[in-house]
């Protein structure tokens, strides 16, 4: 580790993995509730499990991104972090606020939680992903501002690289778009319109910048390819991301009361969104093929390549599957969406987080790479989780196709719940595959605790 202050990232990564585990557990609970409706009722109803599952995902990815920024920005800027103490303080504030919010979800009914946190003073609750009480949202803004101040000062007063500037742009965008969660117009269409700007301009806009810069950083480190070459790729990828993604987010505007032209704009531009992801795949494999050194951390290289492939499949291919308006007319809000959501989040943002954790954690623990035993275990966990996610996606896709057919396409469509019953088998298969994913995750965590001799320092 080149700079002492990079060490603040460690807590962020540990918290990320713990929350990730929580997310998977709630995913399993909810997956079972798809087929055993009253499982854990009334303690954890489906809507609460879903809320915790999605909120934990977002929060742990934010922890991972912050950790990634705190780790790579000092190295890129060639200076210590501007205020390491602030990073540590914000870590605890964010963790405690996050934990209190989840506990709030679990202990109170949602309406009681809204009353308790005085939602009526400034109503922002009740929308998917943005369920957090207003006070938590304000907390998130404070943490994000302190974080961006810290990272921004480090970047601006140090060496400026394309990687750190792209990362900073992505992080600022992340914070700015979150502000739309405070805008809650009465008109439901307008509300939905802006609602999409938070999480979805994240995932198909600014988060791709974060992803690209983290991937570029890790690739420079593990391949030894010239920074100049890697930065050029990064430029093109982010330009393509912004050209396609910002208007492409219009594919969420179909059938919700927005003007017709969104069907054109959303279809055409989002159909191009796989391009930057495909470029990322080319980029990662090209750089690894042109490598000038054999980095001892094989697991990190595997995660980096895995990200490039799975992001293209999950976000690119599975997104394209239902992005054209005439197709989406039938598939909107079915299990096809769930299939895409799972593989895209895993392939792009979960895997890039695990990539940087895989690269940075051994370094923060005083060695270039883990020993062979730990790495083999980590690679097993890579394959278990990734293959499990591929099958979760395939089962949900099958469920979705059947659902679309039974409920919307056939001559005499059946009601929602009847269709759900008929696709039950796929939900069971998905649940078992989810257990495989959990085994992969347990192995992953265990790989941190493998004791070994002869580890390269």
């Amino acid at each position: 580790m080149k700079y002492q202050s990079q060490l603040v990232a460690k807590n962020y990564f540990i918290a990320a993995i713990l929350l990730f585990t929580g997310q998977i557990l709630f995913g399993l609970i909810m997956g079972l509730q798809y087929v055993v409706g009253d499982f854990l009722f009334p303690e954890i109803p489906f809507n609460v499990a879903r809320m915790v599952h999605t909120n934990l995902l977002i929060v742990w990815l934010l922890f991972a991104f912050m950790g990634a920024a705190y780790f790579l920005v000092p190295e890129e800027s060639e200076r210590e972090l501007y205020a390491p103490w602030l990073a540590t303080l914000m870590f605890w504030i964010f963790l405690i606020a996050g934990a209190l919010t989840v506990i709030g979800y679990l202990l109170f009914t949602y309406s009681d939680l809204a009353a308790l946190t005085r939602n009526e003073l400034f109503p922002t609750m009740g929308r998917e992903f943005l369920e957090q009480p207003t006070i938590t949202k304000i907390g998130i803004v404070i943490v994000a501002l302190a974080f961006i101040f810290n990272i921004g000062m480090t970047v601006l007063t140090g060496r400026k690289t394309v990687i750190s500037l792209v990362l900073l742009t992505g992080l600022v965008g992340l914070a700015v778009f979150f502000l739309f969660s405070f805008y809650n117009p009465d008109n439901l269409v307008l509300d939905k319109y802006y609602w999409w700007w938070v999480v979805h301009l994240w995932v198909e806009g600014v988060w791709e910048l974060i992803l690209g810069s983290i991937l570029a950083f890790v690739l420079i480190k593990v391949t030894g390819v010239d920074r100049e070459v890697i930065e050029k790729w990064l430029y093109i990828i982010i330009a393509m991301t912004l050209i396609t993604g910002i208007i492409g987010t219009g594919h969420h505007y179909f059938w919700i009361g927005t003007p017709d032209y969104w069907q054109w704009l959303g279809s055409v531009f989002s159909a191009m969104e796989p391009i930057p992801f495909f470029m990322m795949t080319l980029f990662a494999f090209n750089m690894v093929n042109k490598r000038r050194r054999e980095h001892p951390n094989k697991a990190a290289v595997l995660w980096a390549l895995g990200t490039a492939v799975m992001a293209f499949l999950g976000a690119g291919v599975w997104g394209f599957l239902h992005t054209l308006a005439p197709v989406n007319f039938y598939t909107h809000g079915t299990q096809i969406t769930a299939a895409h959501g799972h593989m895209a989040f895993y392939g792009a943002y979960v895997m890039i987080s695990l990539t940087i954790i895989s690269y940075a954690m051994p370094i923060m623990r005083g060695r270039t790479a883990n020993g062979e035993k730990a790495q083999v275990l980590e690679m097993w966990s890579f394959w278990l989780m990734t293959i499990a996610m591929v099958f979760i996606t395939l089962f949900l896709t099958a469920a979705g196709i059947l659902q679309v057919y039974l409920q919307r396409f056939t001559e005499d469509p059946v009601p929602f719940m009847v269709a759900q019953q008929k696709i039950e088998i796929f939900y069971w298969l998905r649940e078992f595959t989810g257990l495989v994913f959990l085994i992969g995750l347990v192995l992953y965590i265990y790989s941190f605790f493998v004791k070994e001799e002869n580890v390269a320092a």
Partner: protein
Amino acid sequence: MPMDTERTKPLPGDFAIWIFIFAELMVFGVLFIAYAVTRSLHREEFAYYQQFLDRETGALNTLLLITSSYFVVKAVLAIKQDKVQQCVNGLGLALLCGCGFLVAKTLEFSDKFSAGIRLSTNTFYMFYLSLTFFHFMHVILGMVILAAILFKARAGAYNHREHTGVETGASYWHMVDLVWIILFPLVYIIR
């Protein structure tokens, strides 16, 4: 001889920009195909509203972009002979033409907006506004790239041996020009 090494290179400029150009042309290509297909389905509507477009400004803009491309070519040729000042001048004149394009286009847009035309007016205007505005944004991006090269050239970063940057920017600018040369007849003229 420098010219010989030039010829062995398959494409002028940085290879990466060609991937970008290819992707950009794909986006425009899909948009053009979408336009053509929709037009064939609504022939009368498209023909009717097309006559309200400002063909004179469009022609002027075509002239401006082609002229700017000429100056960019001049700039590339100049730097290959180490004529830095001529290169800077060429880029400057190209930027000036770009500015002219932006001004003319802005006037055209404001004319349409003041007539109450919006994306939701009808399918023809939806295509007209989104295609031309998307291209408008590309002209701005192209000008940012040309300006960056101009400043680097003025700082003496290029010479007859190393001028990949100039060729890269020139290639992108020609793409912006080319797209307009297709867009203009497609949307404004073909009946």
